[in-house]
């Protein structure tokens, strides 16, 4: 199953901030964590993560630092800032509210949705 590009883009900010809230990390590891968390359903093009990171850094939500990795290569690590944590809380509230709203309507529709994931049969017009 692939997820709509707009949804991927919209969820990128809370997702990256939340992963960094777990601990400092770097690009490749963040992507790996996204794959783990989504069970492979949320597919990002790897390169697209970096403009997101740079945007968050510019907004002051995260900060970065070059350091030497175990491999001996220079690597850029990211850390969430206080402002970033606040922003994450705010994002979380918004996503919960969206989620709650959708849940409410999902439960109303649940009868017509078959549980094994098959599409809802189209209404028959006569």
């Amino acid at each position: 199953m692939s997820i709509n590009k707009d949804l991927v883009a919209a969820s990128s900010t809370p997702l990256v901030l939340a992963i960094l809230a777990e601990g400092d990390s770097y690009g490749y590891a963040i992507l790996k964590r996204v794959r783990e968390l989504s069970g492979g359903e949320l597919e990002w093009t790897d390169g697209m993560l970096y403009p997101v990171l740079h945007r968050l850094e510019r907004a002051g939500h995260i900060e970065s630092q070059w350091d030497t990795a175990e491999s001996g290569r220079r690597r850029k690590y990211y850390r969430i800032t206080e402002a970033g944590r606040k922003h994450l809380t705010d994002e979380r509230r918004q996503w919960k509210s969206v989620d709650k709203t959708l849940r409410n309507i999902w439960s109303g529709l649940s009868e017509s949705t078959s549980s094994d994931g098959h599409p809802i049969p189209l209404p028959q017009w006569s």
Partner: protein
Amino acid sequence: MNEKAPKNPSMDSLEKQIDAWRAHLTKSRAISGSDVRELEDHLREQIASLTAQGLSEDEAFLVAVKRMGAIDDLTREFAREHSERLWKQLVLSREGGDRGTESAATNGSRKMWVAIGLAVLAGIAIKIPALFGMPFAENKSEAFYQLNMGFFILPFIAAYFALDRPLPKSATLWLAAVFVLSAIVVNAFPFYPTRGAHTHFLTSLHLPIALWLGVGMAYVGGRWRGNDRRMDFVRFTGELFIYCVLIALGGGVLTALTIQLFKAIGINVEPLAQNWIVPCGIAGAAVIAMWLVEAKQSVIENMAPVLTRIFAPLFGLMLITFVMTMVLTGRGIGADREILIAFDLLLVVVFGLLLYSISARDFLAPPGLFDWIQLILVVTALVVDVLALWAIATRISEFGFTPNRVAALGENIVLLINLAVSVVLYARFVRGGVAFSRLCNWQTFYLYVFAAWAAVVAFIFPLIFGFV
């Protein structure tokens, strides 16, 4: 750094593939050097993880690159996030962490302080004569400043290059000697009348042009040989001119506002402005403009070639219309007193358009439409000028040989020869006969001719015409 030491041939080819990928990314202005390093680290980690899962290095590379995303898409994403990078910025000294190294950054700021120091010195130097009863904004000292303006600016620009390149000691001494000797000689000339002598005006005008070659000497670090460096000096000159004009505009606004604001509270600062802001501003701004051109080199598009592209077709059109009007109406060129000066200016403009389009042209590119436009422009300018010279030559005896006329005529001939040879070379290039570099070499060689002619007018004319 284990990846720097290839253990087997396939490792070697992987490095090559990564190099190629990196080179491709680096081309984009939207992706900075540090971004490329970050992406490369990602790519390498991805490849390592994939090879650990049993893929060959080639396969791993292909998968990793594919996952990274198409370079065009990446570039677009980065450009959206870093749109400011698409506007080339003039970064003065703090770039360090990103593109250059730490030492390059401190070097940049050192150069900045050298330039500021020299600008301040130039500003002080131009005030020194005031201590000896020669204030800048007074009629009695007008002639002095006219003659010596170059000496308050050019040595400081030359000094910057002498320090920066650096210039060999012998060349520095030689250059200093040229400046000092010319200053002594022209100030010793007994111009008469002391104000408004023709030869005084000619020397004032031509001396800076002759001395500019000395600045060029410092600019190329004493290595005149090699046309490339001389062409760089031509480019530098064009940009410097444009920067000076822009700074002068800003300076004019600053001065006018200063005077007006103080007027509002009933204080007249006009004498102060004329004796301090204007002279120190001119001397200092020229040095600062020089340094800006140096600092921005690759950062901002050169303006002179851009202006050339706009105006070469327009001037060409104007000249063709002019010639056609002359033919259709049967009017000849009137041999007025000022006519020669006007045609000199025309040739200077056409020469400038030609020179700066040459300086910006890719040497290896095949002839194109713009080359034809350029060629037509120069040919029509030559035709018009020859017509003017003809008209003047028929009546030259009536005018008599005053210094101004001889100088104007000489200038016209010097430029005419340059443009005539240029046309021949250009035409042969457009038809595929000679390489474009021949044209460049001709122009860079001609810098000597200009300087020599300017020196003749500045130093020999007063002697010939008895300092009138």
